[in-house]
Structure formats: structure tokens, C-alpha cells
């Protein structure tokens, strides 16, 4: 295996030394480019956990740094089922900075913060999961209720 670029080593170190509140990213022992990520649903969103047990509201993701990272964006995917207009059934995320708007000046922590922000501000006009976005536009209250229900059901701590 080619040596891990110094930048990835530095990012990993910083993620463990100065973790972002509500976000964790831990590399696999056998592949330091593959991270197990958890993101807490933001407060006042349907993805928020409860104050009392069983809490919940914790979403699991996987993150992979391709060989030419940071020149190409990391690949991120939700592993926990989530009802969100910009996240499809396979957990793929529709987020500009993960695609065309990627910049090598971004990093793992900024990307994960963007994903957390996306949970707080769904954007049904730029959908990935078409049916979810449709329901979101037609009856927002019902959609939010469904999102809450899914959070309770799937996003266990």
C-alpha cells in the first residue's frame, strides 16, 4: 500500500484530538482511508434525538478517501436509514460540496459539518430522493412527522 499522505495523517490526528461536537470519525485499523462516522441529528430538526433514554438521533455514515484525495472529494454515504429529500434510499447524499463544488481546501471535518447542516435544512428543490422530495413539497408537516418516525425507528444510539 502506498504511504498515507501526510495530510490524511494530520486530519486524522486532529479529528481525534479536537473532535467536532456531535460528530465522530474513526478510521479503520486495516484501512486508514476508510472512516466510521456518526453524526447527531441537529437540534430542532426532525432528526434530533430525545432528551430521555433511548435518546437516539445518531446517524451512522461511512466515509472513504479516494487515492487522489484531497484533489477529489471523499465518498460519503449514510448507513442509517433516513427520510430526507436530499438523501436517497441507498444513503447517497446530494450535496454540492461532495461533487462539483468540492475544493481541496475543504476537509473531512468541514464536509461532515455540511452534512449535519443539511439535516437541519432539507432542500426539497434540489432533490435526490424524488418521492421523498415530492411528499416534502406536498405536505411538509406529514413529511416531517415521517422523518421523526424514521429517526425514532432507525437512528438508535
Amino acid at each position, binding site marked *: 500500500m502506498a504511504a498515507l499522505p501526510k495530510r490524511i495523517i494530520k486530519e486524522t490526528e486532529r479529528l481525534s484530538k479536537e473532535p467536532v461536537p456531535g460528530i465522530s470519525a474513526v478510521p479503520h485499523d486495516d484501512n486508514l482511508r476508510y472512516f466510521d462516522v456518526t453524526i447527531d441529528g441537529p437540534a430542532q430538526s426532525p432528526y434530533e434525538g430525545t432528551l430521555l433514554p433511548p435518546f437516539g438521533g445518531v446517524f451512522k455514515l461511512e466515509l472513504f478517501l479516494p487515492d487522489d484525495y484531497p484533489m477529489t472529494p471523499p465518498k460519503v454515504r449514510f448507513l442509517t436509514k433516513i427520510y430526507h429529500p436530499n438523501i436517497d434510499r441507498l444513503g447517497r447524499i446530494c450535496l454540492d460540496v461532495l461533487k462539483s*463544488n468540492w475544493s*481541496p*481546501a475543504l476537509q473531512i471535518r468541514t464536509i461532515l459539518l455540511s452534512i449535519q447542516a443539511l439535516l437541519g435544512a432539507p432542500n426539497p428543490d434540489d432533490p435526490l430522493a424524488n418521492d421523498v422530495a415530492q411528499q416534502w413539497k406536498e405536505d411538509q408537516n406529514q413529511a416531517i412527522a415521517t422523518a421523526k418516525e424514521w429517526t425514532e425507528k432507525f437512528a438508535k444510539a
Partner: protein
Amino acid sequence: MSSPEPIPPPNDRRSSRASSAGMDTADGILPVGGPPNDPSPLQIRASNSLNSKNRRSTIAKQPPDLHLLEYVSQPDSNLVCLICHSPFDRPVQLFCGHFFCRECLDHAWCAQQEGRKTCPTCRSRVDPEKDVRPVPKIIETMLDELVVKCPNAKSGCGWVEQRVNVNDHVMLYCEYTLVECAQHDCRLHISQKEFHKGCLHYTVSCEDCHTSMMKKDLEDHQRTACANRSTNCLHCDASLLRLDLKTHIKDACGKVITPCQGTIVGCTFTAERAQTNLHEKSCPMATMAPHFRDQQARIERNEARLEPLTRKVGILEDGLSSITNMLYPANDSASTFPVTNPWIPTSPTPSPSNLVPTPTSASRPPRSHPYPKTHRSPFTNPSHPFDSQVHHLLTLHESLRDEVNRIANALTDLEGRTNMMVMNESQRTKDDMLHTNAAINGMRHQLHWLISATLQQRNSTRTAANAASGSTSGARQGGSAARQGPSAGFHAPLRRLSDSTRQDTKL
């Protein structure tokens, strides 16, 4: 791999070739080491590294990669490139005011879509011709003054200086920089300080410890690692084998600072070992120490032994509680189940020992009833152990098993009895048949006797008739008389005969 690319020393025989291509050629193709079809290990290594494209051709003259340097102190975050996260290496400034390493920027643009070049930080469009400028002088100075370690620090170079000098150091002065071996057909590397010794890439054996290694490593081994070489103690200057150095420092060296043995009891005396030894003779705590150490060791041993036991107890408790849960779930509705307890007739107040039925409960009284009696438990308390369906089923199962056993026993018994009866019966039949046979034999004898008697009579009658030459009627009368004769005239012998046969049967 933080070691730098090898640099040929000024006296390298290839330097003439290199200088003919120009020392500062950035992209001239220089054949380095070996025939063109046979890439040198250097080239292979270079093609594996991150920015291989830039390096493969000028590998032998490439200065150390500043991105891989180790900085002595954390550099100011304003001097760190957002792309490589290291202090800038030959930085440039975009018109928007953002700084990047030249190389990092080129890589980023290389990966971007065709013709679209933007600032990685603010995404404003960049015209590479006009918008890329040199950085202010002060930035360059600050970068130059960052203190770094020599990239060969791991091989033993202790050079630590400003970054601006690292290039010269590695290229010209560092003795640990690897270069290609002087021997033409040897493609291995050797540190610059040993280059003049010729090829050292052959295996030798250390004459002191008989470990085999390459010649180039031998000196280093003998100086720093060989266990059978003598060395000097850093503390007392005594000369001894490296092998013994550790134990010397730990137990014997008079100059090593050691605490009084009594520290474990509270003595705070600490001095060179020689003085400590003197002190210990008078220190009461030092005399107590061995005893305490013994106790300590014993306590530790016991704790070590206790730990697995605690774990085992935990496991057993878990198992017990899960068994209890399985048998008696704390379920109020369970109390409404009819509960079977075959043991209740003998023990109306069951003790915990017979809550769990065992197959070997021989003390149970025999019952003629083929099925266990079903009771409604007299204990209506919902927490009572019998108020459980599982327990109900278990006891039911147990009593059914007993019933089956009993039935099997009864069957065996019955079979035996039947066999006995059949045997007795057949014996009796056999006896009867013997009697019958005997009777038949007697009758046969009697018949025989009668027949012979009749024949005798007839013969005598015929002789008498012949002698008297009587009439035929007389003969017919005699015949009838003779025919009557045996029944009347020989009555006694017949009686006797039958008597004897009867006696025979009676025996």
C-alpha cells in the same frame, strides 16, 4: 517513507552526465541508473510516490520534499497550506489573497474540470496567466526561518536548523543521505559517508556475536548494538560488555541514583547507589522492606487469582439469573395458568431444592394413576415459583417420563409372567401326553395278549375237533364258544393286566 531521494555526491562519476543536462533542469529527461528498460529501484520507488510525474526524471537531484519534513515546533496556522496541511513550499498568491503551494495548486487544478480554474478557498475564477503572483517577501522569510529536523534523522543525523538550509544540508553535507553504490552493477544504496569505501553490499558475520549482516551495517552494529562488544557505563565509566550493561545499571552501578529500599514503606532517601547502600544499613524502613515486598507480592498474587474467580462468579450469576428468568418470568398474568405440580401431594410446602424436578427422584410414591394429577396451585401469590407455565410443562414432562418408565416395567413383568404360564401349561400337556402314551401301550399289550389267547384257543379247539371228527355245527358252536371264551374264561388275566397298566400310569 520520509527519507529523501538520494543525491549523488559531487564526486559521483555520474555527475558529469548530470551536469551536462544542467543542474536546474526541471523537466529534462535524465536516464538514471541502469539501462532504460530496467528501471532502477529509485525510479520504481519514485513512481510509487505521490508526485511521481514531476520526479521520475530528475530523481537523483531532487531536493528534499518540504511536505515531508518534521518541524520542531507547531508552525503558525497562517503559514499552513490548506491543501497539503503543511507549511507552504514555494507558495504563490492568488489575486483573491489566498496562498497555496505552487505544486498543490497545480494538482488541484489538474483534477478540476477542463478549463475551469478556481481558488480552492473562495472559488473565484482564476486566470493562471495573470492572477497567480509571488508571495510577499515576509512570508518567504517566515517560512525560511521555520526550524526543521534533517530528513535523515532516523538514520542518525542530528542536524536541526532553519528550513532554508535543509536543501544544502541534504544535497551537500548530510553524511546519511543515500546515494547509489559506487560499484557499477550494484543498484543498492549506501550512505554518502561510506560511498568512497566501494561496494559494501555483501554479507559478513560479526566476529564478536556471529550475527550476519551487510558489510555496510557492520560498523554501526559494532558501535551501537553488538552485545559482545565492550562499552563504557555512562554513569561510572566502568568498561563491560553491552550484554551486561542493563543489569549493571539496574543492580550494580554505584553511581546510578537509586532510592532507599524503604520507599515502599515511606523512606524518602534517594542518592547514588553507594550512599544508598550505606543508608540502608541504618534505615529501619529498609529492613522492613523485604517483608513488605513479600506481602505485596502475595496480595498481588491473590488479586490476580481473585480476578478470574470474580469473573467466573459473574458469569455464573448471569447464568443463574437467566435460568431463573426462563423458569419464573416475573409475569403477573402467569399466575392465572393452571399449574401442575406432581410433587405437591408429598410436599405441600415445597422447599427450593425440589422446585426443579430431577429425573432421579426415587422417593416419589408410586401412583396407579397413569397421568400426573393436575392441581390448581394452592399458592396464588403471583411470585410463587410454581406459577409459571414453563415449570408446569417441565413437571408434566417429568411425570410423563416416569409413567412411561413404569409402563415399560409393567410390560416386562407381564411378559415374564406370560412366559412362565405358557411353560407351566406346556409341561402339564407334556405329562398328559405321557399318560396317554402309557395307556395306549397298555391297551396294545392287552390286545396282543387277547389275540394270542384267542389263537391258542382256536388251535386247541381245532385239534379237539379234528380228534373227535365232529360235525361242522359242533365246530361252529365250538368257534362261538371259543369266541366267547376269552371274554369270560380269561377274565382274571385281563383284569390283572389292566391293573398293572393302571399302576404304571400312576407311577
